[in-house]
């Protein structure tokens, strides 16, 4: 019969545990490069309803009244032998896509704010966002060849970061460097977790 394959009794495999980490930062800071250095990068299209940004709008069903915008994002996935799957989502840089952030940040284990030291101001809004939301984040300054190499403490000062926010210098093209950034981020989240429990 036509739909036979849906009829059989299937015992589903145990579902992996999923978790996500956000990669934020200004346009061109190297978010996609960073994700690609450590995992396969896959495209994700979202077509989101701009009218949802409005407050108190009731459920309009007339689709022609809705304004939608398409956001193309990249994401990565790392599957660990333990069965845990870590998703890396690059947050859309432009401010008109802010409506995506709440969903991306919901339940995230933490965030990496990728900074370009030539344009530090580009990551201010990401830092503000994660501070307000109390999402644990680390700042990773992506070292571009033509940018001066700053030490983490001067970057911390320039960004006016709290003492406990880890600041690293990285090369988003290098897997080992990206691995260090991710380890710093998860370690920071774990520390926050443990402090909150006390």
């Amino acid at each position, binding site marked *: 019969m036509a739909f036979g394959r849906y009829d059989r009794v299937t015992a589903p495999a145990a579902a992996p545990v999923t978790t996500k980490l956000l990669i934020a930062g200004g346009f061109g800071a190297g978010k996609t490069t960073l994700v690609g250095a450590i995992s396969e990068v896959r495209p994700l299209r979202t077509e989101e309803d701009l009218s949802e940004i409005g407050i108190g709008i009731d459920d309009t069903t007339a689709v022609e009244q809705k304004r939608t915008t398409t956001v193309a994002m990249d994401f990565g996935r790392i599957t660990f032998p*333990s069965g845990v799957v870590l998703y890396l989502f690059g947050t859309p840089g432009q401010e008109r896509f802010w409506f995506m952030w709440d969903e991306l940040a919901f339940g995230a284990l933490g965030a990496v704010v990728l900074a370009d030291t030539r344009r530090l101001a580009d990551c201010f809004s990401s830092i503000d966002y994660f501070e307000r939301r109390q999402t644990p984040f680390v700042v990773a300054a992506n070292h571009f060849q033509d940018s001066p190499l700053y030490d983490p403490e001067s970057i911390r000062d320039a960004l006016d970061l709290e003492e406990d926010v880890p600041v690293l210098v990285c090369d988003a093209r290098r897997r080992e460097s990206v691995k260090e950034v991710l380890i710093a981020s998860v370690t920071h989240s774990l520390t926050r977790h443990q402090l909150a429990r006390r």
Partner: protein
Amino acid sequence: MTAGGSMWLDREAGPVVRPYALTRGRTQAQGPALGLIDMVVVASPQVADARGLGPEHRRLLDLCQRPAAIADIASETDLPLGVVRVLLGDLRERGLISISSPAGRGGPAENVLRSVLDGLRAL
């Protein structure tokens, strides 16, 4: 007029059929909200009534024969996330799939964080 009828269309133009035509205009999924990394799997035991399902619904059902995250399903099908959510909401309403959410607002549990940390170190 150049050859072929495709002169107005390129990759940037997106699909010819507007994505929400697949959902008959609906932009909200039925039932509880569906998160990006929620896991979807065919319901078990499968008491499927697949009648009346369109090709997109069936394709999604095929993709959830093994547990799959919503972001992966959207990427795999190249359908916008919003459309995938509506279609998965339909499948859930019909009892064809079950969906489980990972951690809530507070983020993952400590054992998950540790597991990720161990996994990253071993990469």
